[in-house]
């Protein structure tokens, strides 16, 4: 392996997009650091009641 | 032994009178035809019936009988200890039982009341029961009881035999039990014994004459069990059979049962239920193996038991009283008379 790159990724933001990006990366062979400014991950989606158009619960 | 005349006008009153000391069973008609049932206090036995769909065997051997009980509540001292279920063995009388059904009970008794083993449930019920038979003046076309060692006026197994004389019943009181029952009814108009016996004989002959159906059983005794067992005709006999249990359930001499435990909350009961050799479950082992796995084997078993094994074991004739119920009820018309004939006439080809 003569690459100078590092096999890890920093994901900034623990909202739905950041979380899923982190999961995909981790599941495809990269070490992931998920960085979130707030005290918990989840972002805005976790605060929603239902989601359109299926009215599924956002939690 | 004595004869009593019962005016039909007094009949119902007498029957009602006996209810004080006897629990009554008898023929009643409901939406599905005539049944022998426990009679409610306001129900009279129907004394003008041709035949009941099922036999009278259930008076002593109910289709489902609770035999043992136990508590599953561990707070009870005797939990998990089986005890005999309470049964009502106060005197009972079955009114209007047909003579062939009474004879059948005598055959069944050979199974439930033996030297080695006495079935307490059946025997206690038997002891408690008075059998008040009703002779058959006009036997039906399927009645072949005369060729099976009984007949329309057979007294075997009865305590009283009633003959319907239009406006009255002539009762032949055969046993002390019968006498007690007649007394309980207040039937006490004694008839001349000799005259009455003559009347009975005439009526019996008239009735027997109308019986056109019969089976030949004379050669069965001499057959070798294995020859019959291996006979080739069983496949044909069994083809149409759908293996329902109808023949065995309507049969007055079929006595097989199955034991089942049923738990309801903290109470457990052990029941015995009618079983049938027609069902594949009848002989299925816990391992899954079934020695009578094929339909043909089961059909053969039924006829071999009735017509050969029983005959050989008890020496009391075949295990069939000729009531004709199975012939009538079989959905596919497997006729015991024909099977009996086939067996009787079968000669093993060398």
């Amino acid at each position, binding site marked *: 392996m003569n690459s100078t790159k590092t096999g890890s990724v920093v994901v900034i933001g623990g909202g739905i997009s950041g979380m899923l990006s982190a999961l995909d990366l981790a599941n495809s062979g990269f070490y992931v650091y998920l960085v979130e400014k707030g005290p918990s991950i989840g972002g805005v989606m976790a605060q929603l009641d239902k989601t359109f158009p299926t009215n599924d619960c956002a939690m | 032994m004595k004869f009593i005349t019962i005016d039909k006008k007094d009949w119902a009153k007498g029957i009602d009178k006996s209810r004080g000391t006897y629990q009554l069973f008898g023929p009643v008609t409901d*939406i599905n035809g005539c049944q022998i049932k426990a009679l409610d206090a306001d129900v009279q036995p129907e004394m003008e019936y041709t035949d009941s769909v099922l036999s009278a065997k259930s008076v002593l051997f109910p289709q489902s009988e609770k035999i043992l009980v136990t508590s599953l509540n561990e707070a009870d001292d005797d939990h998990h200890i089986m005890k005999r279920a309470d049964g009502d063995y106060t005197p009972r009388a079955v009114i209007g039982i047909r003579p062939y059904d009474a004879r059948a009970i005598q055959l069944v008794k050979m199974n439930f009341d033996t030297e080695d083993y006495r079935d307490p449930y059946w025997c206690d019920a038997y002891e408690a029961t008075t059998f008040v038979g009703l002779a058959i003046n006009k036997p039906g076309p399927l009645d072949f009881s005369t060729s099976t060692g009984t007949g329309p006026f057979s007294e075997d197994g009865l305590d009283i035999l009633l003959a319907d004389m239009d406006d009255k019943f002539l009762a032949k009181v055969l046993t002390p039990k019968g006498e007690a029952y007649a007394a309980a009814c207040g039937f006490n108009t004694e008839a001349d014994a000799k005259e009455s016996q003559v009347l009975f004989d005439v009526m019996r002959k008239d009735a027997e004459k109308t019986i056109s159906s019969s089976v030949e059983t004379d050669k069965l005794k001499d057959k070798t069990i294995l020859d019959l067992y291996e006979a080739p005709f069983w496949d044909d006999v069994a083809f*149409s059979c*759908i293996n329902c249990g109808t023949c065995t359930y309507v049969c007055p001499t079929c006595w097989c049962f199955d034991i089942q435990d049923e738990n309801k909350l903290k109470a457990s009961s052990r029941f015995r239920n009618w079983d049938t050799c027609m069902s594949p479950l009848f002989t299925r082992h816990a391992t899954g193996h079934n020695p009578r796995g094929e339909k043909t084997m089961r059909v053969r078993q039924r006829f071999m038991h009735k017509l050969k094994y029983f005959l050989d074991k008890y020496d009391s004739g075949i295990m069939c009283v000729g009531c004709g119920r199975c012939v009538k009820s079989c959905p596919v018309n497997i006729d015991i008379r024909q099977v009996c004939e086939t067996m009787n006439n079968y000669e093993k080809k060398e």
Partner: protein
Amino acid sequence: MDTCIQKIREIAGDLLEKGEVERVIGFAEGSIPMATSPVAISTKEDAQKLCFSSTCGLNLANYASKEKGKKIAVVAKGCDSRNLVTHIVENQIDRDNLYIIGVPCPGMVDKFKIAAEMGGEITGFEEAGDTLIVSTVDDKKELNKQDYLRHNCSLCTHKNPVLFDVLVGEEVEEQQLDNAYPDVDAIEALTADGRWKHFEELTQNCIRCYACRNACPLCYCPTCFVDESGPQWVGKGQDKTDVDTFHFLRAFHCAGRCTDCGACVEACPMGINVRDFTRKLNKDAQDMFGWEAGLTIDKRPPLDAYSPDDPNDFIK
């Protein structure tokens, strides 16, 4: 009817002689009046035993599917053919191994009804067209067959076989009904208590001989749920709940599959009209899915498949 019987015998004899089938399943005369018995014929000579009449009330599909792997011919009236269709759909019979001798059905007679009318054991029974000549030991009556048809036959709209290789006799005219389920309507109109009472009385004399199940071509499971012991789904005694559970569950297992052939009622020794259960479900299959069982080998019954537009009004 006689020419029809003649043809059945000829065709059956022919098939056996040419070796096209191993066995022909049909009806033979019974040993008592109004009784017939399913038989399997394997020689041309024995084909003379075959008969057909208004007392061939059982369903021969029941026998056909038990001859797995053999080439067989079956005498089939409308109902039998519909159950053969069901058996083909449900992999019980291989169509290639089956030769169907179709018989346009004249309608089967109700033995219980005739016996009740005659008031005694039947000693003689003959058919002359639509007239039934019935005798007992001391009576003889001529009855109009149409008045003594079995209930399912009186409401039948598929007298002609729906699937056959040869048809014996001319097709008969199918009746058009305004309402195929007047009996179900009447029960549905009862109050809940009334319906319960109706079913309680209906099964009160059931002896659990399972003749209804065993006569039914739909009941081919190797082990029926009532016979299972691990788990034991249903108690085996005469407890009313257990008796009714048997009838209800059996009916549900037939939902969307029952052709109302009447074999169950025909077989019941107690004369219980077990069709009361199945017909309600037949009506529902008709109302909800526009489905009548056994008419096509190209489609499975509605409850065997899931479709997004299945009616689901019951989900609130």
